[in-house]
């Protein structure tokens, strides 16, 4: 089992969690961290380190962020890299559903699933 942390702009992480729980019909065990543009980077880093450590399960922790290069991702990456925690950007509902479905896998494998699920959801019909 891997602990999941969503690090996003403001309420995006909670909104995605809410919809995933509606689809799955149950509560999902994960932690969200909302980063505002007003956020003080050092206090956010401190919070992120604490959340990532507290979220670790037997398989470790996986961090999902919404936008690569944006502050939530950059701060999450800085906090995660110190502990070797994988970070995957581009969070969307397909990515989260895939991750939840395979949450019993260790963090590194789950990071691969996250990439796969996120890309599977981008379809032109």
């Amino acid at each position, binding site marked *: 089992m891997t602990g999941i942390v969503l690090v996003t702009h403001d309420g995006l992480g909670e909104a995605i969690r809410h919809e995933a729980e*509606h*689809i*799955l*019909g149950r509560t999902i065990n994960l932690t969200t961290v909302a980063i505002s543009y007003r956020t003080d980077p050092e206090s956010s880093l401190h919070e992120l380190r604490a959340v990532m450590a507290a979220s670790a399960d037997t398989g470790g922790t996986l961090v999902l962020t919404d936008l690569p290069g944006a502050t939530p991702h950059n701060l999450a990456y800085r906090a995660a890299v110190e502990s070797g925690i994988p970070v995957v950007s581009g969070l969307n509902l*397909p990515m989260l*559903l*895939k991750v939840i*479905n395979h949450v019993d896998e260790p963090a590194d494998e789950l990071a691969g699933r996250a990439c796969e*699920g996120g890309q*599977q*959801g981008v*379809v032109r*019909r």
Partner: protein
Amino acid sequence: MTRRPLQLTNRLGLHARAASKLVQTASGFDCQAWLEYNGRRVNARSIMGVLLLAAPCGSELVLETSGAQDEEAADAIAELVERRFGEDQ
């Protein structure tokens, strides 16, 4: 191995919550499960696979199960589809 046709009769077809219920049902049995629709074949235990079928109301799908509990899984999935995933319409 079992193969049986399924017809979607709920108004929204194989939408997200319906797909999730189907996947949860299929995952509860010791067998493999596949769904075929419109020339595509997907793992019925993968929510993204099932969602990507985008099967609307009235669709005819084929369910294939194989493994120790293939009959039980096929019965449970067929029953779920027949009662429109628990939806009113």
